């Protein structure tokens, strides 16, 4: 599959025709050499191997291309609305349980919309990432080599940990693996303006949105927002607009030969790209209303590269929006 680099509107990769089953979850993510010279125009795209998992080496995608997006809805029978989102190697499952009384609601006590994001224990975050940015436990001793065995998931329980994790050298580390409380708050802030509650919160009823991150490779917030919107619509909850989120990163690249430093904005960065970036912008938006509900930025960027990155993130949102619409019409994952 070749990277299709269209001019203005970045199109995504052809998505595999996935059946309702999940693609192979535990995909050992390829290792990135510590000092590989980063070329934003020929970015590694290791997510394009198709279902039968032949290990064709990853093709490249351009600076403006999103990763392969795979959406499918009503994947779970128990919840009133559910969806599965695979954005490159970031895979997450969203379940929405329709209006139910607050007493029986598992998390959150107030009425109205309640969001919760959880990482799947043990496998959500790559061991190499944990080892390199070791958590409060001193992993350098236990994980003897980079490919050491499993890492206890509860080490990522509190926001305090990721804060410790965050300053492991890269200023945008918090964007790469943000903690759960942060994700839940931002997901709520993204959805709240769009979800039509009409008085639900007064009647002590709540709509639960539960996001389970199966595998995180950067862009978790964007994927979570898209998945949550899909699941809400699937559950029949009134939504003013299909909220979707996307992120963009600004990378520092030295041109070979001249040591002039050029800042390039890159759409939908993976975790490794985020860690190498000097700034990451995440935007959640209601495309039809043209209203931004969440706007986050980590790391340090100058004003010019800032507008470039925001421009990319905004286009990313519009593209995601298109895919959400197709998925809703086509019933399961579909391609433009």
């Amino acid at each position, binding site marked *: 599959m070749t990277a299709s680099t269209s001019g203005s509107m970045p199109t995504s990769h052809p998505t595999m025709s996935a059946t309702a089953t999940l693609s192979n979850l535990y995909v050992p993510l390829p290792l990135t050499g510590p000092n590989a010279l980063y070329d934003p125009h020929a970015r590694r795209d290791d997510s394009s191997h198709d279902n039968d998992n032949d290990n064709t080496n990853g093709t490249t995608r351009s600076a403006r291309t999103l990763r392969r997006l795979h959406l499918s809805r009503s994947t779970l029978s128990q919840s009133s609305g559910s969806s599965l989102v695979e954005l490159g190697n970031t895979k997450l499952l969203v379940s929405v349980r329709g209006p139910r009384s607050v007493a029986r609601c598992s998390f959150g006590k107030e009425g*109205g919309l309640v969001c919760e994001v959880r990482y799947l224990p043990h496998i959500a975050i790559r061991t190499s990432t944990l080892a390199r940015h070791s958590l409060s436990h001193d992993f350098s001793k236990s994980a003897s080599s980079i490919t050491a065995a499993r890492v206890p998931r509860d080490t990522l329980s509190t926001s305090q940990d990721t804060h*410790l994790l965050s300053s492991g050298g890269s200023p945008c580390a918090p964007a790469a693996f943000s903690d759960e409380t942060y994700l839940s708050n931002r997901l709520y802030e993204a959805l*709240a303006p769009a979800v039509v509650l009409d008085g639900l919160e007064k009647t002590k009823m709540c709509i639960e949105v539960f996001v389970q991150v199966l595998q995180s490779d950067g862009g978790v917030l964007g994927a979570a927002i898209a998945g949550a919107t899909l699941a809400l619509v699937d559950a029949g909850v009134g939504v003013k607009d299909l909220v979707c989120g996307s992120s963009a990163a600004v990378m520092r690249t030295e041109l070979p030969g001249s040591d002039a430093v050029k800042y390039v904005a890159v759409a939908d960065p993976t975790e490794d790209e985020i860690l190498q970036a000097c*700034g990451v912008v995440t935007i959640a938006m209601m495309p039809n209303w043209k209203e931004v509900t969440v706007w986050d*930025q*980590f790391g340090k960027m*100058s004003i010019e590269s800032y507008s470039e990155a925001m421009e990319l993130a905004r286009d990313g949102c519009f593209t995601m929006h298109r895919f959400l619409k197709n998925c809703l019409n086509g019933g399961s994952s579909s391609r433009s």
Partner: protein
Amino acid sequence: MAISPTEAHYIIESALHDFRIDGRSRLEHRPYSVGTRPSTTTTATSSSSCLILSNGSSRIHLPGSSTDILCSVKADLVRPSPNKPNEGVVEISVDSSLAGGLDLSLGGAGGGGGTAAKRQLRERESQITSLLQRLVVPHAVHYRELAICPGKYVWRLSVDIVVLRCDGCVLDGCAMAMREGLRSTLLPRVSAVMNGEEGVASGVGDHGGSSNNDLIVEGDVRMALPPPGVEDCPLVVTVGVLSAPMGAGGRVRHVCVVDARTEEEACASSRVCVSVDRKGMVCGVHTLGGGGMENRMEDEFGGLGLGISSSMPVNMLGDVVNTAAGAAKNLYEMLDREKELSDGKDLVRDDHDTSGYGNLLKSQLLIR
């Protein structure tokens, strides 16, 4: 709802006219004054902290102390955390119990009544802390240079911010207080004498013979320096987006306002905290729920509004960042002017001022 619709209408109207209710234009800050020195000259000249017991401190206040924020920085040498052996540590804590007007009946009868207020207070304090943690701390100092001897001794700067009272934009005030507090902190020069090998200044201490790593602390205050890299600690500018729902015209017009007072914050549809450093680089952005009218949650609560949902037109993003960068530039200038003012000027000799130790909260206008 914090203020009545007609008041909000007037405030937004004024903002659209670029002539706010207190005369300021949209991008102007209020005359914050920075107090880093005790108010009288009787105390030791070199002690630059208005809080005697801490290494560095600052007080940000507006005339008539409608905003009064104290910040104290205490530095001590600690063993670094295992996962960041060669970096210093900056810890933040925020206390705004006096500012909120919440009655925290802790003891005594009203146990129950207090809990809701206490929960809100803790929520607000953790929100301020996490925002500062995300927007300011990563860029506050050069962490590597805080390490005296990596793995063994690093500086830990514990920054404690006490918000006595705040009239809008609490995050801006805290960031200013933190920056000025760090800049007024004086860390003695410490050099580590490696095991056995003679450190250059080892001749000083007569107990040079001790075996493990030893620290030579330079006692001379004149040699003390502020923590390295504190000059480009970023400041936060909160841009309030006021949206005036035009009647028949249907055209919703938005305007960005900087350093909003409480009333203006109450009628903002959304607020964006942009952290900008001295060189104009954007170091962090975070959208806060507006205190606005239409999509605010019912239990909106004043101060740092916990109103969660905020929505802002897409085309506004660009000029919000530019507004913030512009406002940040003249905020830096104002603070620098203020700093020399408070350092250089010889202070009014209060001959019969009984407060030998200089009282901390003396307002600027002394009525006698």
